Structure formats: structure tokens, C-alpha cells
């Protein structure tokens, strides 16, 4: 057994070495080199790691990523590691970093197998695709894009991130641990949802496959149902 483990780890080391060798390091004086500190958690090119807690940032709208960096820096979002890294940087540089990850078009991981029953998944699908008039909750797709891959420049996609991450974010909004520029539309919305609604929606979202060749949409199909300070067109501030 021990020998097998040793051999297995030797294979893994060999594989890891080959993998490192065929990934050319970015040129030294480049934005790719400058964002190296982001990669241990957010993965190569920001495509996330298998670990599931840190979100994929590759291909998210640059305006959204920039808003999050500023939110961490200015105390609207709370994650010490992110605040520490963004703390002493100016807007122009944070925008450049956001632009780098926003421009990455790299494959998404296969979706997670369903962890819940069909009824829950169906409830989740309806919330995401149609909303719930009784709860006064518009569908997710009305703002996050018809393909749920986000809308430029500031609305993030909802596919290709783990259910743990999505649930954690919505729960944080519910208890006030995450906030966006005022008016904070997501904070308003999440108050109208019950915890089981959050779970159904995130369960369904996490089981959806993402086509490789899709980025965020360029604009809204219909004007968003709520005013969001994070979106330049609808809010008062960028």
C-alpha cells in the first residue's frame, strides 16, 4: 500500500512538473506578472481551483470585478485577505487588474451533479428563469443576462461558480456582511427570499453547464426591475 502511495505521488509530481513546464511564465513587466498574488486562491487565469470556496473571476465583467475590489478596499465587503491586498492601491490599477481577469476566456469546469431532489431543482429553476411574483422577486435572468453569464459592464454571471460560494454570498447579503454601492439592489432582493428559496436557486444554478464560448452580454434585454448603485446606467454613481 505504501509503495502504491509513493508511486502515485511520484506520478503526481511528474505530472505537476510537466504541467508547470508547459505553462510559460508571463513576461516580467506585464499585468499578468502583476496579478500573480491573485492566482493561488483564484486559480490559473482566475479560473478557480477545485477547492470551491474562492470564486472564479475569469471572464466576469470587468466593471463587476472592479466594484468588488473597491468594495473590499473601502469596507463594504469583508474578507481580510482581499482587503489586505487591495488596501493601498488606486482605482486605475484595480481597474487594470479587473480588466485582465475580465478578458480571460477560459473553459468552465463541468457542472456539479445535483445534490437535491427534483422538486427543489424545479423551484430553483423557476426562481432563476421566471422569478416569483408573490414574493416580488424578479427572475435572476432579468438582470444577470438571458444566458445567466452576466451583463457588461457590472453584472456578474451566475454560472460556473460553486453552490457553496453562491449561497455564502446571498447569506452574507441577508445578514449585512456583504454590501454593494447604494442603492444596494441585491440587499433589497435577498430580504424577500426565504433561506430555502436561496438554496433552491443556487442548487439549480450550480448544476447548469456553461458553454465555452460565451462571455457576458453587452446590454440588458429589458431595463432591470430595481435600481442598483453598482450599475452605472441605473445608479447615481459608477
Amino acid at each position, binding site marked *: 500500500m505504501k509503495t502504491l502511495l509513493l508511486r502515485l505521488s511520484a506520478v503526481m509530481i511528474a505530472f505537476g512538473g510537466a504541467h508547470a513546464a508547459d505553462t510559460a511564465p508571463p513576461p516580467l513587466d506585464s499585468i499578468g506578472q502583476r496579478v500573480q*498574488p491573485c492566482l493561488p486562491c483564484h486559480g490559473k487565469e482566475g479560473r478557480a481551483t477545485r*477547492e470551491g470556496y474562492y470564486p472564479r473571476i475569469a471572464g466576469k465583467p470587468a466593471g463587476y470585478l472592479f466594484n468588488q475590489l473597491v468594495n473590499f478596499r*473601502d469596507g463594504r465587503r469583508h474578507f481580510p485577505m482581499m482587503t*489586505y*491586498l487591495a*488596501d*493601498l492601491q488606486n482605482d486605475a490599477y484595480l481597474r487594470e487588474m479587473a480588466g485582465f481577469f475580465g478578458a480571460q476566456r477560459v473553459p468552465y469546469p463541468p457542472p456539479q451533479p445535483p445534490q437535491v431532489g427534483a422538486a427543489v431543482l424545479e423551484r430553483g429553476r423557476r426562481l432563476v428563469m421566471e422569478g416569483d411574483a408573490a414574493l416580488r422577486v424578479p427572475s435572476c435572468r432579468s438582470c444577470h443576462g438571458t444566458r445567466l453569464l452576466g451583463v457588461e459592464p457590472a453584472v456578474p454571471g451566475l454560472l460556473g461558480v460553486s453552490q457553496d460560494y453562491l449561497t455564502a454570498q446571498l447569506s452574507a447579503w441577508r445578514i449585512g456582511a456583504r454590501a454593494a454601492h447604494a442603492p444596494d439592489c441585491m440587499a433589497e432582493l435577498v430580504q424577500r427570499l426565504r433561506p430555502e428559496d436561496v438554496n433552491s436557486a443556487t442548487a439549480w444554478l450550480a448544476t447548469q453547464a456553461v458553454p465555452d464560448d460565451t462571455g457576458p452580454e453587452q446590454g440588458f434585454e429589458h431595463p432591470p426591475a430595481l435600481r442598483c448603485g453598482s450599475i452605472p446606467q441605473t445608479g447615481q454613481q459608477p
Partner: protein
Amino acid sequence: MRKLLAVLAVLVALTLLAVWLLFPVDRQDGEAPRAAYTPPVDSVERGRELVTMADCRACHTARGGAPFAGGYAIPTPFGTFFTPNITPDAQTGIGRWSATDFWHALHNGYSKDGTLLYPTFPYTNYTRISRRDADDMYAYLRTVPPVSRPTRAHELGFPYNHRLLLVAWRLLFFRPGVYESDSTQSADWNRGAYLAQGLGHCSACHEARNALGAVKSKHNPAGGLVLNWYAPTLTSPREAGVHDWSIPNIVMLLKTGRTGSTALQATTMGPMGEVVYNSLQYTRDEELRAMAAYLKSLPDTGARSGGLVRSSAHTGTLSKGETIYADDCAQCHGDNGEGRAPAAPPLAGNRAVTMSSTVNPVRIVLFGGYSPGTAGNPRPFGMPPYFQTLRDDQIADVLSYIRASWGNHAPPVSGDEVGRNRGSPLF
């Protein structure tokens, strides 16, 4: 019995007399050494520059909060201090303070109502500021938007929560007094000493404190632990001393957060990065040159860091460290610790790596980080964090290897030292 009482009464009277005579309050106004430029005519404008150099805003502003409205938490071994609101709001700020009240806070360390202030507020340094400069700072602070934000009470452990103890502390450790020029030194040197000792309050972090939180003594040979970083001593070229640096290089480090020439590449991180970002990058070059002239002249106290100690790391540790270095560090820092400009500094001969306190190198491997994004270095490179991918013993091994290689001769790092830092606050 009656005799004993009489003796006691005399003793008490003598003690009170001594406290009254020795109680550190100072009434001289002083005069700041002249700057090497013509200061603005407007008092508010002069005050703005002085308040920026004193970096009042960094401590008196909570993250994302209104400037100078207080609420920033300062964790210390004595408990957590919360900075007060110093906007001109009448109820919650210092709107009702006179220029004289403000002067007493800076110069004598007590509040408008006579409350003795804790020395977390660096009045032990600010006491060197001249009355005229204090009045300009006051004039500027009257112009910032008033914000209603009640000041939160400090959360201190016993017995430090009793302010009365500050009477004793002041008797022991506080001598108020404005800066007095040294006529044997140049005007530039005097200006630099005035700024570094007073407004800039360098010693508040860069000098070790005793068990009662007082900066130890003149020519203090050790740096201080501040906000979970080690502020290296300025009196040893093996730590942060700049005795053999050129003035332009010192100015560049203070102004941009890094020096550019590869032979002498230094970077500010952690709390010093904050000082550069919030204060020094906006300071006039003339003032920075004066500070540099003074810093170069500090005595070399010969702190023991690095250089002298032969590495005692176990060869097993070193070979494990070498493997980790090759896998995780060499791509940027070079096979022989030579660094790769401009992205990664050399580790060979790098005193930030070899100084006797291991707090900073441990933190930088654990959490990585960027130097500040200043006007002179707006897109700084950063170090990736390894807290996820390397265990405590692995980080200890690789640091021990780096501290013992390519001409470095510093003692090894233990896994416990890494473990102690793993859970420490990030900012």
C-alpha cells in the same frame, strides 16, 4: 503612634509636592526649524501639509468612513484602542476645542476636559511640534467637514483601563518639550530631525517599547512590533538603517514605496506601506530630503541582526527548504536568490530576509502582499500568499534555507514561529 502619623503626613505631602513639581506639563511654544522651501501663506494650507505629514488621517479614519471621524481600532497588548472623532463637530468631535486645547493635546497629552490621553496617541512625539505648527494644524482641521459620530470607548484590560495610572506613566516616561535646534548641525538636518522626531513620529513604531508601552530610551537599538509587523530599527544598517544610502534613494523609498536600482532594491510593506501611501507620497521633496539627511546621521547601534550568526539550521531542513525554493520561489526570485527586476527583489543579501526578527519574512510568505500603489510606482508588483499551499514547517524550511544561502547567514526559522503568525490579523 502620633509620631508615625506625622511622618506619614509629611511623606504624603512630599509625594504630592513632587508630583506637582515634576508633573510633565510644558508651556514653551518653541520654533520649528525652517523648511528648505517657502511655505504657503495660508495657515489652512500649511496645516493641511502638516496634518498629512503627521498622518493623522490614517488612525483617525475607519475603513470606508468619513475622514478624521475616528473609529479606527488599534489592537495592542493592553487592549483595543478606538480613535476619536477629530472633525469639527461640536457634540462628537473637537468643534468646541480652542487652538490652545488642541495644543495641549499635542504638546502635553491631555484632552480639553483635562483627561489624560493614552500614549497610543503619539503625543510623546507630537510634543516636539511648535505652537505655530500646531495652530496651523488646528486651522486645517476646522475646515474638514464635521461628522456626527460618537467616539467609541477603548476596550482595555485591567489595570490599563484606569486612566489614573497615566499619572505615574507620565512621571516615568513623558517629558514634554518642543524641538530644540542643534546649532552644530545644518538647517536641513535640524528640519529633518524636527519632522522625524515630531510630526512623522517614526520612533512610535521603529523603536522597541518596554512592558508599559513606553519607547525605551534614546538610541534605542531595537525595532518595535506594531500591528503584527516588525518595524525594524533605523539605527542599524542590518535592519532599516540608511546610513550608507544616497539621499535620492532614501527619498525615493519614502515617496514611492520602493527603490529602483537593482543593487539596492527595497520595498515598503505593511504599516510602512500605509505611511507611504497616506502620508509620505504627498510630502514635499525638500522635506523628505531633510528627513533623509537626519536618518543617515542616526548612530549605528550595531544591532545584532543577520551577518554575524552562522546558520545553525539542520542540513535536513536546508535540503527540504531547497526543494521548496526550487518549486515555488526560484521562478521569480532566481535560482541563486538574485531576484528578477523589476518584478521580484533579490533575496541574497536582503536584510528584510535576514534580520533577527522573523515576523516580516514569515508574514510575507504566508500572506504575500503588494507595496503601495503610489504616484511614483502606480502598478506595484506583489508577492503571492502561500498560506494555503505550504504548511508551517514547509514555510519554516524554505525561509531557513533562504536565510542560510547565497551569502546569507541568519539563524533558522521554526514552524512555531510560522504558526504564531498564521492566525494574526492581516491589517
